[in-house]
C-alpha cells in the first residue's frame, strides 16, 4: 500500500502523517511534555493521543539559598485531546537520538 509518494517527507506535516499510530513526543507551552500514541491530528496540530504520559516541569526558588529547585510531576491519561495552539514541537520518539 505505501507507495513512494506516501512515505516521503515533502512538507512538514508529512512528518506527523507518518507518525500516525506511532508513539510520539510532544513539547507544549508552559513546560509540559507528552508521550503517547497518535490516533488523530489535523492541520492545526490538534491531536488525539492514547496511553498518554504528561510531564510538567516546574522551577521553584528556595527562599533561603535562592537555589533553583526543578520539580517534575507526572500523570497518565488513557485518551487525551490536545489543542494544537499549545504545541511547540513534535517528534517520533523511537527515532529520537
Amino acid at each position: 500500500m505505501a507507495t513512494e509518494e506516501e512515505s516521503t517527507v515533502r512538507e512538514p506535516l508529512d512528518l506527523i502523517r507518518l507518525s500516525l499510530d506511532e508513539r510520539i513526543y510532544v513539547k507544549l507551552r508552559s513546560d509540559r511534555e507528552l508521550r503517547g500514541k497518535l490516533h488523530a491530528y489535523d492541520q492545526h496540530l490538534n491531536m488525539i493521543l492514547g496511553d498518554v504520559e504528561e510531564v510538567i516541569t516546574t522551577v521553584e526558588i528556595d527562599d533561603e539559598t535562592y537555589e533553583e529547585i526543578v520539580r517534575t510531576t507526572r500523570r497518565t491519561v488513557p485518551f487525551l485531546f490536545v489543542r494544537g495552539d499549545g504545541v511547540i514541537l513534535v517528534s517520533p520518539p523511537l527515532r529520537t537520538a
Partner: protein
Amino acid sequence: MSGGSGGGGAVKTPADFLKSIRGRPVVVKLNSGVDYRGILACLDGYMNIAMEQTEEYVNGQLKNKYGDAFIRGNNVLYISTSKRTLAEGA
C-alpha cells in the same frame, strides 16, 4: 524579473531564501529563546518546519536531541543558516 532560482546565487526575497536553505544546517530560534540546530528537511507557508538530527539548546546548553522534529510555525522567531558541520553519517 528573474525567477527565484534560489540555488546559491544572490537571494532576493524571503521566499527565495527559504527555498534555498532546504537540506542545509540551520539554527531555528523560537520566541521562547530556545534554539534548534539541525538539518532543515522542509518548511511550509506557516513556517512549520521539519528538521533532522535536531539538537535543542536552552540558554546555550544542549538539552535534547531528536532524530526528526516538527516545529509549529507560530513559535518561530527566525531561521538562520549555520556553518556548523554536522557529524558524518546522515
